[in-house]
């Protein structure tokens, strides 16, 4: 396996007033291997989503380095970052963020048309394939108001996959879904991952995280610990085992955090 994504001392802080800095990420080192399924957990405000957006080039980091496919992101122009997002990355959001003025199918194919790497007919074929795979082909010309949350998230996944990205970033993709839809979406993501696409998710949900290969735990802007769970076969029994293993580890992680008392971060009282 080769490394697809790597961060070195990645920091992000916001200015508050004239002198104070609010540090959201504090020198985060992270490495994701090609084909891996990684989740990031941690309490609210720990910096999970900020990490996701900074390592994906969606947001500009304050300091440190991020390498994606050996390209250093801070050195790339706005245009190159856009190209990267368009052709090599896919994003799935909790709020889904579909364009209201487009039909469901148009939302999916838009990035494909924009990319221009494939003929538009092939983009349409690919969209058809993805919609069939996710079971939403009958909704192709519907408005976004005519679909359920689960269906919309499938549209979001199809959209993320239309340009065959190397990595999918997900920010709480199941956060707003009921448990049935949530497990369907996870199944889809596992299928995508099996086909070779790297997946990096941020989640609160240990059930979701337990299905990934590796779980990172964040606290106060740093990855404080991680656990490798290995490949998930999809077996129900195995799922229960992984969940309980993760729960135990999370309890430990909490203790570990308290014990570790990351002094420099906690003194940044502005951060909560």
């Amino acid at each position, binding site marked *: 396996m080769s490394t697809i994504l790597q961060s070195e001392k990645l920091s992000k802080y916001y200015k508050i007033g004239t002198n104070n800095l609010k540090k*959201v990420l504090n020198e985060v080192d992270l490495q994701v291997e090609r084909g891996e399924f990684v989740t990031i957990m941690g309490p*609210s*405000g720990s*910096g*999970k*989503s*900020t990490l996701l*957006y900074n390592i994906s080039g*969606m*947001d500009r980091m304050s300091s440190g380095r991020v390498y994606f496919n050996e390209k250093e992101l801070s050195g790339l122009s*706005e*245009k190159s970052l*856009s*190209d*990267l*997002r*368009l*052709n090599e990355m896919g*994003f799935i*959001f*909790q*709020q889904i*963020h*579909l*364009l*209201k*003025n*487009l*039909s469901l*199918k*148009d939302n999916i*194919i*838009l*990035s494909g*048309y*924009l*990319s221009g790497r494939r003929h*538009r007919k092939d983009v*349409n074929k690919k969209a058809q394939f993805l919609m069939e795979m996710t079971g939403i082909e009958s909704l192709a*010309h519907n*408005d976004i*108001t005519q679909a359920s949350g689960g269906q919309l998230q499938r549209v979001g996944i199809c*959209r993320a996959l239309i340009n065959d990205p190397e990595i999918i970033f997900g*920010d709480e993709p199941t956060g707003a879904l009921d448990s049935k839809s949530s497990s369907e979406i996870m199944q889809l993501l596992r299928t995508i991952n099996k086909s070779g696409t790297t997946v990096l998710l941020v989640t609160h949900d240990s059930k979701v995280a337990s299905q990934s290969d590796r779980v990172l735990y964040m606290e106060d802007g740093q990855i404080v610990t991680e656990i490798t769970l290995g490949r998930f076969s999809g077996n129900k029994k195995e799922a229960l085992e992984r969940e309980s293993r993760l729960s135990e580890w999370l309890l430990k992680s909490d203790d570990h955090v308290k014990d570790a008392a990351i002094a420099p971060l906690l003194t940044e009282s502005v951060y909560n």
Partner: protein
Amino acid sequence: MLLYRILSKDLKRKKGTMAGVFVFIMLSSLLVSSGSRLIIELNNSLEHMFETAKVPHFVQMHSGDIDLKKLNKWSESNFLVQDRQIVEMISIDGSALFLNKGPESEENSIMDISFVRQNKSFDFLLDTENRIIELLPGEVAVPVYYAEQKNVEIGDLIRVRSEAKEESYKVSALIRDAQMNPAIVHSKRFLLNDADFDKMRQNFDQLEYLIEFRLNDTGSLDKFTNEYLSAGMPQQGPTVDYHLFKILNSLSDGMAASVVIILSILLMLIAILCLRLTIITTIEEDYKEIGVMKAVGMPQNRIKCLYLFKYNLIGAAAVISGYLLSHSTDKLLMANSMLYIGRAPKGLFLVVGPILSAASIFLFIMLSIDLMLKRIQNISAARALQEGDKTEVPKKISALRVSRSGNININFFLGLKDVIERFRVFSLLAFIFFLSAFITILPVHFLSTISSPDFITYMGIGKSDIRIDLHKTTGIEERFEEMINLIDRDNDVALYSPLVTSKFTVLDDTGHSESLMVETGDFSIFSLDYLSGRAPQNNDEIALSYLNSQELNKNIGDVLIFQIEGNNHNMRVCGIYQDITNGGRTAKASLPHNKDKVLWYTLCLNLKSEVLIPSKVHEYSRLFYPARVSDLDNYKSQTLSNTITQFRKITIIAIAVGASVAMLISYLFLKMIINRDSERVRIMRSLGFSLRQLKAQYLTTTLILLVFGIVTGTIFTNTAGQAFISYLISFLGAARIRFIINPFQTAVLVPVLLISTVSLTTAISVNGIKEYRITASVAE
């Protein structure tokens, strides 16, 4: 305190926009104050000048002998007459007058130049202080027209050359001549000391008379005119009256004042549009806050007051600033009227009028703001708090699905889709672009029309290379015959047509006789464009100018009764043409001319193609002295030069206004739109749309709207605009103006100007989208 905090926060947030709104309201107030002041001042000053100069109510110009006994007897017996006088004028040819030190005479001038002495009882010639001019021997007073057009200044020497000798006079005053002030009046009076006048009379034998009357009541002017003309009083020359003097004097400034006021109303509407866009954006930005205010029980009126106070304060400050500033711009606007007419002592209305006009602007803006803020009522507290989203989902058109975009560039397609699906929202911008195009193209078209040599069509003149005018001189008929013979023999001449203008008596529908100025000759040689019908072809046909046809109430096929040598002669109207010369009241017939009442002789000619027109003009000027020889373009540009210069200025201003309006409104509108589209922009950026591509989408949208605006604006200008201009000019004698369009200006210059302005503005206004990142909406 709360109000102050909200106000200062909002002003900081929208500095640029509020400054724009402020400037527009201020300009609107400035223009309306200045425009109304100009109208009031013009009216007052004109009255003042007319009173000081004791303007005659009725003037008959006359060349030839006067039967004084008969005239005196008739005048004394007419109870309408309050006072009368006969003004002697020494008519000199332009070639005898040298205004500047150089050898250039006024040979090419189209003005009828005459020298007079100061009148004793009325029709006084005034100086620029509106004082009756008194001159010493050797001094001359020169019409204001020459000060403006030929830079003649007090202290200059002018020379008058007769066959016998040359005399110099020192300019000691500029004349305000209530009768002949405006440039469109082709007669100008120079004033001499009585002794100098008598001396000059010995050198120039050509005398013309102004038979002037002041009446007891100007209301009976029409009655008096009829009585004068039907009593067989001297009438070899045009008849003019008090009303015409007033119209001619106030024409150019009155038009300027109207334009200024129309411009001010336009600016006010723009300010209101800007305010509307600003208020909508503010309310959309504050959507949630308004919801919270409502939820905590703040009364609706109180919330509305917070906004109302802010915008009214800005409106009031702008209106007051505009009014105060208008005092400093007055001089600029009134320069022309101050020079030609002067200023009357200030009255109360001159102070109150502009204040009232500015106040009406404020009132209108206040009411509009009140109406705009009604949308606060429609915000539901629950919806605002739950959804926090104020945008509506536009109706989708299936033909505009991305999947059906074929091979069209996706950013262009999205821009196009947006325009069509959200046309209701974008229609305002489309309307503004239409308006900008109209404001810009209308004056450009009109300017190219009046500047074009083809504008001669509206001056009742057929197209020819050279026009020779021979006014009343001794032995005029023989001179004219001689001229025809010479031209007939001249091998350089390809074509010529002699025309004679004389007065005929016609009977109107009620049987009253009227005098009609008729040009007679063969009108098939240099043909004229007729509004309807054609040129007269035989003795029984007559073509009327548009204004004459209106006043005589005669149309094609109607009969007009001429009294020729005591017999009635039926003339059928065969054509109606446009003519803005001679007060727009002329006629053309193939009759033999009325030898007793000849006004002037004209000869139009075309030269062979290899002959140079200017050298021929020069040759004929010397040969046919004192006839006035001019090429038609020179004739036209001299007659209209003032109007063209004024209009060029107006056109430049209009182009600047049109472009600024397009710029400002598109800036504000796009600011509002990108604020509404923030979510969409965030999503697109997360999908990989670059800032450049997103800007291209907005640029597509605005350019499609702009092209729509330019096309509809051009069509509207060429139809309704043309009709509007025709309506305005119809009062001067041309009822159907057809724009003579300069294709480069219309198809290239104006569109390129508007497109580059709007493109630049779009690029600047949508620059704010770089602040919209998906991370902002998911910030932890």
